[in-house]
């Protein structure tokens, strides 16, 4: 794109007057859309959530260490312990920062959901394999195996997408650096 086109565009954009007060109001509202700020009420709810998460972590850790625990309940307790600890750590961060970016909250929910689903699948599979002579148990094992295969395929797909995005980002960063260098050399 020729430079004179960019210059004309920039001058055209400069010609557009804006009211600073309206722009400021827009920026504040946009910020509240992208970043959730804690109000006194939501801060209190966050403290409550933190207390529940820590209690859950402690309870599940206790049942994990119990000598009477069977493999199924140990898996569930382990998953709950990890998920609630992750939630607690995230809530501490939210309280320290006084808010959170909405995009990160999606990622936290996704992680916790994945851990819980993985635990349910493993428990179903182990439960099904526990008594092979029982037809209902065999059905449970087959069902667990199917869920495991679907989960594995989904996880692999996600990993491939993540790797593709990572590679694309590296390539774009390189292109950006090359463009920077070309501009500097041209000056």
């Amino acid at each position, binding site marked *: 794109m020729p430079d004179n086109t960019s210059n*004309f565009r920039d001058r055209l954009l400069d010609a557009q007057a804006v009211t600073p007060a309206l722009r400021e109001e827009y920026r504040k509202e*946009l910020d509240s859309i992208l970043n959730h700020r804690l109000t006194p009420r939501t801060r209190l709810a966050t403290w409550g959530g933190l207390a529940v998460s820590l209690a859950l972590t402690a309870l599940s850790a206790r049942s994990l260490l119990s000598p009477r625990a069977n493999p199924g309940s140990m898996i569930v307790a382990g998953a709950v312990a990890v998920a609630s600890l992750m939630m607690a750590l995230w809530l501490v961060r939210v309280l320290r920062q006084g808010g959170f970016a909405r995009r990160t909250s999606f990622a936290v929910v996704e992680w916790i959901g994945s851990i819980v689903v993985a635990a349910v699948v493993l428990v179903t599979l182990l439960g099904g394999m526990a008594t092979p002579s029982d037809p209902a148990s065999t059905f449970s094992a087959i069902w667990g195996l199917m869920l495991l295969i679907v989960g594995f395929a989904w996880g692999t797909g996600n990993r491939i997408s993540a790797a593709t995005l990572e590679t694309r980002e590296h390539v774009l960063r390189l292109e950006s650096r090359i463009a920077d260098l070309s501009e500097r050399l041209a000056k």
Partner: protein
Amino acid sequence: MRLDRQLLESELLVTRCQRGDQTAFEGIVRLWERSLFYYLRRLASSEADTWDLLQETWLKVFRSMGSIRDPRTLPAFLYKTARNTAISRLRVREMGELQPDTTDASECESAFIAFDNAEQVHHALDQLPLPQREALTLFFLAELSIDEIAQVLGVAVGTVKSRLHYARKTMRQILSDGADHAG
């Protein structure tokens, strides 16, 4: 920032955003805010409405960020989202004018438009009929190809060229009338 650098930068920001980088979306807003505001200002009747529309546009873009398969399509995606937001929110009197028209594309000589005085062009833009105004605004912002402008406006490429042709004629008329009055 030069346009090709801006496009490269926005491609990188979309990719970072899709990888979960929370600061990347704010970067996209900073990069495209002025152009989108300029375009929406040409469609809305007041500045307050324009800021509202822009805010709603960003909210829609934020929600559908993960669905952008090719980051290079971001500019067209942004303008299309902005336009759809304007159409659904404003329900302007000129709504009929925003619908696709059937102007004969064969009358188009060239889509190239050369104007120097950005200030004069800026004021003259608001005097154009709405279909010509938005086509010419997108063309002047120079971030989209003619094909992409057609995609944003939901019309054929020939129609865009035709609108640009008539817009150029009308704008020359407006500018020369202004010069006569000034003289």
